Each structure stands twice: as structure tokens, then as C-alpha cells.
């Protein structure tokens, strides 16, 4: 479904991504794990068009999308829930969700998807008219995901959805991620909480200083000594 081939990404002169290649198949949950500053967020931003790769190719459903503008990429069915949620704090929950469907014109479909979002996140329905900025952290995360789903994506990029959330909410969010996946959305998940991420993922890539250090089946990696040592906090 998505194929990233040898991309290099720079911030000014600093190279953040060094020749990364990866693949995501339809219907999978793939997770990226790695230390702080390894380049995970950068990779997601490059896929969603916020950053341009200097070299390399990104092919999505047979079409090259590397370096295209973000709005084109959203249109093709890739939605990105950025690190830190980034909800529009000065707007209501409802307006945030409407913006998620910014490029869509099918009124009917939008309505249906809105109902679907409320099914997944009943809390958002309760807070419809509230300013997004006054939501709690967990609610904001739900809103950010709901907003992304309003674009009707086939591939959802999630950047650290558990960050700063209470344990109870982390569980809820992960349950919902699995639910979303089951309705047919492919998911690329970046997580610090590697244990949890690996537990729901099909496959995983380990990112170290801008490179893919390891990749493979989620279960395999969970039991790998190397991963345990470095990322799972095991001994």
C-alpha cells in the first residue's frame, strides 16, 4: 500500500532521516519505535507531506507522493495525527471535526462518518460545543484522532497517541486504535510505549538516529533481546 524507498530528509543542514525504506501493507498495524529524536516524527511528517524528502521515493497505492503538498496527500487518503495532538484550541469540537472533512464535498458521507466518530468517541458528542483548548489531554487526543478520521483515510498515521495520557486513557486509546484498524483502516503507529505498541501491531520497525535498525514481526521483536534491552526497559 505504502512504500518508502531510501529517503533522506534534512532540517537545514541537519540530516534527520538517512536512507530509510519501509513498507506497509493494506489492513496492517505497523509500529515505529525508537529513542527520542530518532526521527520517527520526521518520517511521518515526510509521508504526510509536511516535509519534503531530499532524495528517495514514496509510493502510495502505486502513485508517487514524495514531495507532494500535504493537501494532495490528504486527498489521496492519508491522514496524520501529529505529535502533541495539535487540535485547534480556539475552535469548538464540532468545528475541529468539520475541518477534518475540509476537502470532502459529500455531505451524506460526512454525516455518516461523523456518526461513526461519535460511536468511537462518545465523549466528543457530549463536548460538541466546547472549545477544544479546554478539553482534557485525553479528550484532545480523541478529538485529534476523530478529526483525522473525518478525512476518511485509508492510511492513518498516529504519532505518539499515548503521550502524557493517564493509564486508563492510554488503554482506551489503544482499544480504539484496534477498532479503527478492524474497520479497514491501515495504521502506522509511532510510540514510545513500545510494549503496548508491539502488543497491537502486526509488524514493527526500530528507528535509530535516522536509520532503520531492525524490522520484523511484532512478536519476534518483542522477544528479541536487543529490543528488550534498548526499548522495553527489560533486563
Amino acid at each position, binding site marked *: 500500500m505504502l512504500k518508502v524507498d531510501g529517503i533522506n530528509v534534512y532540517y537545514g543542514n541537519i540530516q534527520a532521516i538517512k536512507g530509510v525504506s519501509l513498507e506497509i501493507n493494506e489492513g496492517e498495524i505497523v509500529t515505529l*519505535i*525508537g*529513542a*527520542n*529524536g530518532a526521527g520517527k516524527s520526521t518520517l511521518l511528517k515526510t509521508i504526510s507531506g509536511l516535509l519534503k524528502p531530499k532524495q528517495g521515493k514514496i509510493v502510495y497505492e502505486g502513485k508517487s507522493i514524495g514531495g507532494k503538498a500535504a493537501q494532495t496527500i490528504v486527498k489521496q487518503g492519508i491522514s496524520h495525527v501529529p505529535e502533541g495532538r495539535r487540535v485547534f484550541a480556539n475552535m469548538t469540537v464540532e468545528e475541529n471535526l468539520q475541518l477534518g472533512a475540509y476537502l470532502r464535498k459529500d455531505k451524506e458521507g460526512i454525516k455518516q462518518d461523523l456518526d461513526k466518530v461519535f460511536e468511537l468517541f462518545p465523549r466528543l458528542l457530549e463536548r460538541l460545543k466546547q472549545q477544544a483548548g479546554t*478539553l*482534557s*489531554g*485525553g*479528550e484532545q487526543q480523541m478529538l485529534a484522532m476523530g478529526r483525522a478520521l473525518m478525512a476518511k483515510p485509508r492510511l492513518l498515521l498516529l504519532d*505518539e497517541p499515548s*503521550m*502524557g*495520557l*493517564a*493509564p*486508563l*486513557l*492510554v*488503554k482506551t486509546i489503544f482499544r480504539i486504535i484496534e477498532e479503527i484498524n478492524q474497520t479497514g483502516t491501515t495504521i502506522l503507529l509511532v510510540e*514510545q*510505549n*513500545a*510494549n503496548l505498541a508491539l502488543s497491537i501491531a502486526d509488524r514493527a520497525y526500530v528507528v535509530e538516529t535516522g536509520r532503520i535498525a531492525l524490522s520484523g514481526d511484532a512478536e519476534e521483536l518483542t522477544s528479541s533481546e536487543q529490543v528488550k*534491552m*534498548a*526499548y*522495553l*526497559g527489560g533486563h
Partner: protein
Amino acid sequence: MTTNTPLLKVDNAGIQFGGLKAVQGVNVELDRGELVGLIGPNGAGKTTFFNLLTGVYVPTEGSISLNGEKLNKQAPYKITRKGISRTFQNIRLFSELSVIDNVKVAYHSLAKHSIASSIFRVPGHFSGETEMHEKAVEFLKIFNLDRFMNEKAKNLPYGQQRRLEIARALAANPKLLLLDEPAAGMNPQETQELMKLIALIREKFDLTVLLIEHDMALVMGVCDRIYVLDHGQLIAQGTPAEIRNDPKVIEAYLGEEVS
């Protein structure tokens, strides 16, 4: 200042934002040398509680005292000078300043040389600055940050920035250190390093620590006692073992019990 007054005594403190009671009726007592956790769901008022302690917000009710001395309505910088210092949930370093200058800012209140002496460069300025510099270098060594001494703070890797923020807070020479989610955004490996750092701090400095954290492994692992906030109110307090099994806490915060 008898030894049986607690270091920090918060009596029925609360604050309202418009109609929202973000914190209400909170009573907390911390003894010298304790490491206490503060947990609770998102939006429970934990950070707001820190803001009350440090004077960023003025409590609309109740009182806060440190070492028996009331802190109400004092400017934040005065409270810091009295001995409470903190880190922030979102890192707030002085990003254009070098690592060592970040620490020196925290030493500022200890400086003995006046503005005039700096402007006219009298010997007092040089001795004051030299002393500050040497102290800061020594201090950074403890945190293993001396190799980054002259880097701008913004150029440090994330984990080191967190470390520097803690170091900077300690440089202000607090009796009570407040840490707001120091492990946020860290992977389990990095979290373990953080735990080691906290242990080191307790060993080297004579400190009381209040810690907000969502990482239960960390909280349960290092805290002597834990307070739990929900909707601005304390719903439980006790040892990690007690908290872990408290049904109210499980319902509001933990989900099912954590291993």
C-alpha cells in the same frame, strides 16, 4: 522552625477559572526528605496545583506554607527564593542561552554583585562571576552535562533537555523540588535513566520532591507516598501499594490494577 512542622503544608487550597474549580479543598503535607507522587487523570488539576505552589496562580482559597511560613500571594520569584523550584510539563528552557548560562540564571538570586559593580567592572563583579561560573561547572558535572556546557540549550537532544531542566531547578537551591511529568515522551529505557537520576538527586541534595507522572512504573517505583487528584480534589493518598489497590483510584485513573 521545629522539626515537627512539615516542610510544606497546604491547607484547603483551591482555585477557580471562571466557573471551573480546577483545584479545590486540597490538603497536602510533605515532610523533609520525602519523595511523594501526585497522580490523577488528565485535567485533574495536577499542574494547576504546582502553579499554586509556585505562585504562578494565586489561590482563591486556602493557604500554603513552607517551613511554617505562609506563601500566599507572593510573587513567583520570591517563592523560588524561599525554596520551591520546579520543572515544567512542556520543557521551558532558555533556549538561546547556553547550557551553563541556563544554570547561572538559576544562581542569579545568590549573586552578591550589583548592577553598578557589573557596569563599572569593579573587582566584586569578577569575583562574583567567577564564583558563579565555577559553581555552575561543578554542578553540571554532577549531571554529566558539562560536555554540553557551551551548547545552546535548544540544540540539546530531548532527553538531555529534560535533564538540564531538572538541573536548572536544582541550581536554584530549593528545599522542595516539583517535577511535572519528567518522563513524558521518554521510552522505557530513558525512563529508567531518569529514575537513576532522581535517586542521585536525593542522595546528593537534601531535598523533598513532589512528582507528577503518568508512568506508573516510575511512580510506583520511586515514591514513598502518593496523592491522587481527580476533578481538583484529593481522592486518595497512601503508599504505592495502597494506591494501586484503591478502588476509587482504579476506577478514575488506573483502569484495572497495574502489575
